Each structure stands twice: as C-alpha cells, then as structure tokens.
C-alpha cells in the first residue's frame, strides 16, 4: 500500500499555491492535514500527478473572532480548534463536533478547512458549517470569492470549488447569545464516521422558539438542513410532542443511502431519534443561558 509517484510542491504563499493549481488544474491535489487524502493515495485509489503541500504557508494558520464570526485559516488544525477558548465561547457546537472527529492523532494534523474541502457526506464538520450557515473563502486565478455552505457541498466528495481554487478560510457564525445547541451522532465505534449525526441550534424568546437550526450528516450525498422541520418549530412552545413531530419531519426530508454498516431505513430512523434528543438537550442549554 505505497502511493504512486507524484510531483511535489511546497509553496510558501497562497499566490504560489494558486499559480500551481492554475498550471496543473485537476491533475493537482492540495495537501494540508492529509488525513483523508493520503489514505486514498496509499491505497492507490487516488493518484494525483501533482501535490501542492500548503503546510509551509503559515499565514493560513490562524483562528480568530471576526465580528461575531469565527475565522479559521486553512492550516488551523482540528485539535487546535477543539481546544480553543474562542470556539468554546462562540461556537460550542463546532467544539462538541470536533471532539468526535476521528482520534487525537488524526485531529493533530487534520485541518477544519481540509475536512470541508474533502466533503465526505458522513463528516461532522460539513454538517456544522451547514447548520451554522457558515461560508468558506476560495482564492483562485480570477480572485477571491466567498461560498456559502449550501452552495459549497454538491455531492459525494464533490464541492463547487474549481480545481484551480484554494480554500483558504472557513467562517463559522457564532450562535447568538442565549442559543442552546447540541451535537448528537451514532457511530459504530468512538471516532468512526457517523452513521447519522445532527447539529441543532435553538433560540428562545418569551418561552417560544425564535430560531431553530437542524443540520444533519450521514443521511444524504451532502450535509442536509432540515428546513421544513426548522420552520415547523419557529414560534412554537417547546414540548416532547413538538420534538417528536420535528423528528418525523426530519425523517421525511432525508434521503440516506444504505451500506454494509447500516441500511437507509436505519439511518432515517436514528436521524429522527437524534434530532429529538438534540433538541431536548439544546432546550436545556437555551434555558440555562436565558
């Protein structure tokens, strides 16, 4: 299981990296943490002709709060974000999900932006970006653009990025103060990909639900925002029956695929169960915060 040969470049600046991507197009692959790409290369499933290693571009190694939004550079390691006080304060949903991404050794090298670029339909971080309505910044030969989550994820391992563009940043909007949150997933073992996972944000005003966010992973080709379920919650008074209704709405909205670990029916079923449990937990947190 040794990788096929490739041309290796380790640029020092974003501009150099983009120039390399521009020159080689879809023959080139960006290497940041490598925790998803290198296994595929070792198995010779992926045989990029050119590797653009961005680990020397230290300008991309940052995690900062920028006007109510957390900005993470492309080299911000998952472990750094997991243990960051900024994330704990502004984006606890991201923090909770990060703790379940693979294992410490994976998170020490894996980057948050890299996970978003890889766009695995069962990855936690893509669903968190979708739940929080985050965006990513892409720098290409034609300049820089911001891509919202719902336009970023296209299908299995496929994003709307052009091969010549480099993802340089991910931006996670902070949950408004007083919002309850919860991340719930079912995985066969600690650290495995989720059979299904859900991230929830819940804001209360006057005992009623002012805002509801429900984002799921593992139940479609991309992360899924359960829009109908969210709408059914806004304005309602929280109750177990309401959570059960939201769970049913989620089950109707998702299109999971089955595989050797779990059938589509099982994933659809636990997506509902996890939604209900996440909403209950988010409610407790929302009330504590009020």
């Amino acid at each position, binding site marked *: 299981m*040794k990788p*096929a040969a490739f041309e290796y470049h380790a640029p020092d600046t974003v501009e150099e990296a983009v120039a390399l991507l521009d020159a080689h197009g879809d023959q080139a692959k960006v290497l940041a943490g490598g925790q998803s790409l290198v296994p595929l290369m070792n198995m010779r499933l992926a045989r990029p002709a050119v590797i653009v290693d961005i680990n020397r571009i230290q300008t991309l190694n940052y995690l900062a709060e920028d006007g109510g939004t957390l900005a993470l550079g492309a080299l911000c390691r998952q472990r750094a974000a997991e243990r960051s006080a900024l994330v704990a304060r502004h984006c606890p949903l991201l923090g909770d999900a990060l703790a379940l991404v693979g294992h410490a050794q994976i998170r020490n090298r894996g980057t948050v932006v890299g996970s978003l670029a890889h766009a695995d339909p069962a990855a936690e971080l893509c669903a968190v970006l979708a739940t929080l309505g985050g965006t990513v910044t892409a720098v290409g030969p034609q300049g820089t653009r911001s891509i919202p989550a719902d336009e970023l994820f296209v299908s299995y391992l496929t994003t709307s990025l052009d091969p010549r563009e480099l993802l340089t940043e991910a931006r996670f909007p902070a949950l408004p103060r007083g919002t309850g949150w919860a991340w719930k997933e079912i995985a066969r073992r600690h650290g495995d990909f989720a059979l299904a996972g859900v991230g929830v944000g819940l804001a209360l005003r006057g005992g009623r639900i002012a805002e509801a966010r429900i984002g799921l992973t593992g139940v479609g080709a991309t992360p899924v925002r359960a829009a109908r379920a969210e709408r059914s919650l806004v304005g309602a008074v929280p109750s177990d029956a309401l959570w059960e209704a939201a769970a049913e709405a989620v089950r109707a909205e998702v299109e999971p695929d089955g595989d050797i670990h779990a059938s589509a029916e099982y994933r659809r079923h636990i997506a509902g*169960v996890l939604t209900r449990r996440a909403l209950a937990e988010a409610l407790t947190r929302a009330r504590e915060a009020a």
Partner: protein
Amino acid sequence: MSTRYFGARVTRNEDPALLRGHGLFVDDVRVAGVASGAVLRSPHAHARIVGIDARRARTAPGVLAVYTHADLGTLGEPLPKLIPHPTLIHHKTQRALARDTVRYVGEPVAFVVAEDRYAAEDACDLIAVEYEPLPVVATLEAAVAAGAPRVHDDLDTNVCAHYTQRVGHVEDAFARAPHRVRARFVVDRGASCPIETRGVVAAWDPRARHLDVWDSTQAPIPIRNGLARLLGLPEQHVRVVAPDVGGGFGPKIMMFYPEEVLVPFAAMRLGRPVKWIEDRREHLVATNQEREQIHDAEIAVDADGRILGVRTVFLYDSGAYIPYGLIVPIVAATTLPGPYRIPNYHCEFRAVFTNKTTVSPYRGAGRPHGVFVMERLLDQVAADLGLDRAEVRRRNFIQPDEFPYDVGLTYQDNAPLRYDSGDYPACFARALELIGYRDWPARQARARADGRALGCGVACYVEGTGIGPYEGARITVEPSGRVFVATGVGTQGQGHMTSFAQIAADVLGVSPRDVTVHTGDTALFGWGTGTFASRAATVAGNAVALAAQAVRDKTRLVAASLLEALPEEVELADGRVFVRGVPARALPLGEVAQAANPLRFAMPEEWEGPGLEAVRYFAPPQGAFSNGVHACVVEVDVETAMLTISRYVVVHDCGRVINPLIVEGQIHGGVAQGLGGAFWEKLAYDDQAQPLSTTLMDYLLPTAADVPPVEVAHIETPSPLNPLGVKGAGEAGVIPVAAVIAQAVEDALRPLGIHITEAPLSPNRLRQLIVEARRSP
C-alpha cells in the same frame, strides 16, 4: 518440586526489549541488499486467466523480476495438504501462483521483485491480465443448491467433505421427547486481524547452500521441513526463524501461504535476499478467515428440561480451498455438547467450497459455534418450559465425580473425546455469584421501571486444549549460571519467555530473570509442531519441566563428586548447589556447569556426556479439557439498538495456572476478539463474492472505548494427563461471547420476545429484529 515462581504473577522477561522498540518483527529484519516483493492479486472471485502480459512491468524502473505460474516449475504444483481425513474426499489446495483459474478475490497471479516496495507496486500496475469471468459461488446456501456453479470445475460438487458422528439412539430420543426446540443459527465470516500482517524474508547463500527464512508463522518447524522438501535442500541447510510475531490467533499457522514459497524461490533465483510484507488490504483478502457456518439444530428435553438428545446439521464455508483439513468443523461439532450430559447426539456437517478467501482456524476455531448453538437452544428450552436459565443448565451438568467423562465422539486429534477433569457446577456457581444473578430480577425490574432495558447473560463451555502430537525442549546451564531453554513452538505474545522460565526456575532453583527462553528458531530446536489450539503452555511447558528435571539430576550427579556426597543429598536453590543441610559449602550453579565440561583429565562415564544439558519431549495421550463460564450485564438503547456492556465476568478453569498475569491477559484479549465477532466485525461480500470490507474503516476492530473491563476469576482443577497439571487457556476468552451477549440482549428485550440466532449482531440488524417483533405481537 518446590514451587516458588509457578503460579506467581511474574512480570515478563520479554517486555523491556519490546517497550524500547527493540523487538525483531519480520519487517524489522535487515539483510544487506534486500529487494522487495509485491503480489498481483485477482480482482475476480472466479475467472479463467486468458493471458498475462508482463512485458512493461519487467522493464519498469527498479524491477528485478516478474514471476507468473509458468516460471515456477515444480513449485507450481498445488501446495501441500495438511491434516487429511478419511471423509475429506476433495482435499484441494491452491498453487503459489494461479495457473489458469482464480477462485477468490485476492488469489496471487504474479509476483514482482524490485528494489523497493514502491517500485514493486508500480510494476504490478503495469501487468495486464486478461480474465474471462466465470459464474461465482458467493454464499454457503448457493454452494449446495442444485445446479450451483462449480468452484473446482474438475469436481461435480462444491461439497468437499461430509462427516457425521453419532452417540446413542438419537431418533428414539427425539420421538419420545415431550418438548423439542428447533432453530437455524448463522455465524458470519470474520478475520483474526492481528495488528502485524504476515511477512516473509528469505536469504540464499549459494556458496554455503544455506537458506535463511524469517516468517511471521506460528509453526516454523513444519515450514522448514516443507521448504526443504519443496526446494530439494537438506533440512539442516534451511533455517526458519519466527522472530517476534505481532499476534497470530490461528491464521499464521497455515502451511503454505503462497508467499512462504514465492519469497524463498525468488531469493534463490535472484541470488539476492527478498522481503515481502503483506499490507492490510492484502491481509483482509489473502490471509485465511473463518467463522462462517449455518447450523440447523434441534434439542429434545423432558418436562424438567433434562436433555434427551441434540442434533445439529451444518454447513461449513471452507472458502476456495481446504489446505488445513476439517479441524474447524470437527471442533465445532465436538465442542457443542459442552459441560452437559447428552445421551443421544448427532452432529453432521458438509464442508463446502465457495469463491471466497480460504478458511483455516481462527482463535476458538469452531468452539464459539458449538457453544452458540448449545447455549441458545438451552435458553429457548428455559423460555418454553418457564424454567430459570441457570437451573436448566445445572440440571444437565456433568458432575465432578464423573471424570474422566467419555463424550462418545472422536476429537480433532483423532483421540476419543474424554474430558479429563473439571468442576462445572462450582465454576457456574462462582460466575452467578460474581454477576449477582440471585437478585438480578429485582435489579432488572428497577431499571425497566425507569425506562432502561438491562439484560443479564450466562454461558458455559468446555474447551479441548493441549492436544499432541508433541513438543520438546532443550535446557542448558551455562558457566555464567544462566539457564538457556530452546523449544520449537512459536510465540506470538503469549509470554512463553516468562512462563517457561518460571517452570525451569523452580526446578533448577534460579530466578526466572536468569532463564533465557528462545522459541521459534529451527536452528536452535528442530523438532516440534507449533503454537495452536491453546497447546503451547501445556505441551511445551511439560517438556520444559521434564528437561529441567533431567538437568537437575545431571547437576546432582556432577556436584556429588565435587561435594563428595551422594547425588540424592544434593540440593539446588538460589542459583547455588549444596549438600542438604550444609548450605554454607555451596557451589555456584555455573561452577558445576563449568566442571561438567572438563578441559583436562577424564570425564566420568556415568555423566553420559558433558554439560548440564538435557532434551525432553512431552506427548500428551489426548487433549486436556479446560472449561469456564462467562456472564455479562448489557444495556440496550431500544431506540437506536446500540449496546453498552456494563459488566463482563469470566470464571475460568485451566488446571494449574503457571502465571495468572499472563492467563488473565489471554482472557482479556480473547473476550475483546469475541465481542468483536459478536457485535462489530463482519467481512461483507456482495453477491459476486467481491469483498466489501478490505480496510479497517469497514472491518471494525473494537477499540479501548468499546471493550469493557473483564473481571477474571480462576478455579484450578489440575489435569491428570500431564505432570504440571496444566491445561490450555489461549482461546477461552473468545468462545462463549456471542452466546452470552445474545442471551443478555434477549433478556434485556424480554417484553418484545425477540430471538437472536445470528452473530455478529449489528445495531442495524438488532433494530430489524425489534421492528419485526413489534409487528408480530
């Protein structure tokens, strides 16, 4: 024999080197000029090889050679057949490289040798093989269905053996039985998956006409003997070393894997050392797997739940070939009776070829299947007759005064299946006590009251261990006073370097730290069988004891002349030799060893040769039968069907325990592998027998966060069959796990009345059972 270390929790001699990273595993072997091999494997489960074009590969950079079947000459014949059996009429084995037909995904088709593994794999990508796909046999049932495609086209069937054993009058028993239970039990395919994959290094010296081979095998001596015959070399010119082996668990005892022949062949052809290390994807398609069986079983009991008769007819998946004989199905059939008195028993199996990876024993080797069927049948009897699960077992136990107990069958070693000793009721009572079985109903009710589904399970087994034919040991006391023990078994982490040292230390009055045990090197000890079926400690351990006693007697003889005393007056203790009662005038043991190898003057004839050294062999008349009981408490999240195991208890009787630390470690590891097979691990294949779980992302080994702590208690009923009174313990942990988990989950979901008759039981599958149970009240 004064025992000071036997039975003590001595920490291990082998740990300091392993802890420093100074282990010597096959991939760590460094031979100057070594080249690397890679195997091109079939992507088809069944196909004819129309043509192989390796021209571009042969000229690729760094490539030294590309071999296909045509290059192998006599080595291209089907590899040796192990353990024949009269009912095994089609004893098919594979060739080192496929000649014209591939019969499972992963079967070797070409072998490339290059400067390094990277270049060798590059070359594999350049080899163009034209296949003509053939109809595939993907499942056991398809294999025996009428008109099924043939895995071997020179046969008119996929059944390679059909073997029945019977005791008593089975049909009568079933005819007059007031109550019967029938069920089908299905166990899926699993792999032992040691963290070290397989590997072979070979170096040929044409001048000395000597072949050195390092092999991650559990049986270096049979490999040496086989290679010598296949390569036409004297056995003494072939040295096979099983260095540190990173876990074996059964599949590393197969003889021969294709690579074990290809690597020495290439080394001799090229005149350069060759190393092949299996990668994980290769391991999950090309290293032998096991576990796949379908049992149609039935039990007949009287009104009180006493067993009148048991019958099982089962299919055993042997994969594409059957090099290792009928060991697994025979062990399954003969383990089923367990600790119970079964007057009338019928066990019948058909060993079947399928287009999947070859099968050979994996830890437990059929024992888990026999126990799963028996314990599940008993649970159903208890449920049907409204009996307590523990009571239905107690009523059928073989009692302590009935040993040796003749089960009436023939065991895997062709000896009569006769339990040598045991105390099944005591073991069972101890397990019930530890798990808190008496007040379990109350505890369960309390939990159910606050919406939690808790279940308790208890399962028993009897395990054949320590079978022959024999093992040997040579012990030498060196002038330094150190003791050197050489034996032929291989070691894969079982702590032989410590347990054998404890045995020798007690006899020779030295510390285990002063005993060096070296296993698995045919140059150091050339006679022996190997490590399998929980036999190393029992068989080789007793050989070590006998050899140590012989060295002690020789020491007394030599010391007697030095101390002017009679040999029987001489004592050994604390590394010294002295006349009993006069410890002050003692000689260091090393001095006696020095004296035993005189440089001058005459050597007394009665010494029968120089040195304090002896070789002894131990050949047990039959296996020693360990037994035990596992009990557990599980909690089921009924909504998600996820399972947590809150307590796991093992009460175990493997005769006298040499080192409790090591036995407990074996049980912890066995339970972890058992839990893997009961819940996480399944080798998935599609309907074209394409393997779908060839990485550790999909073949799920349980982690530290998944395996619960295991509480272990020992009962020691010595075996009368060997001087040390020991029995095997290597496989005990894995045997009843699927049975006890199934019983506990059924207990937790009692209101639903689900029946669990399969393993592994994934959350996905458990949820289906829950949904089906709810649909049919």
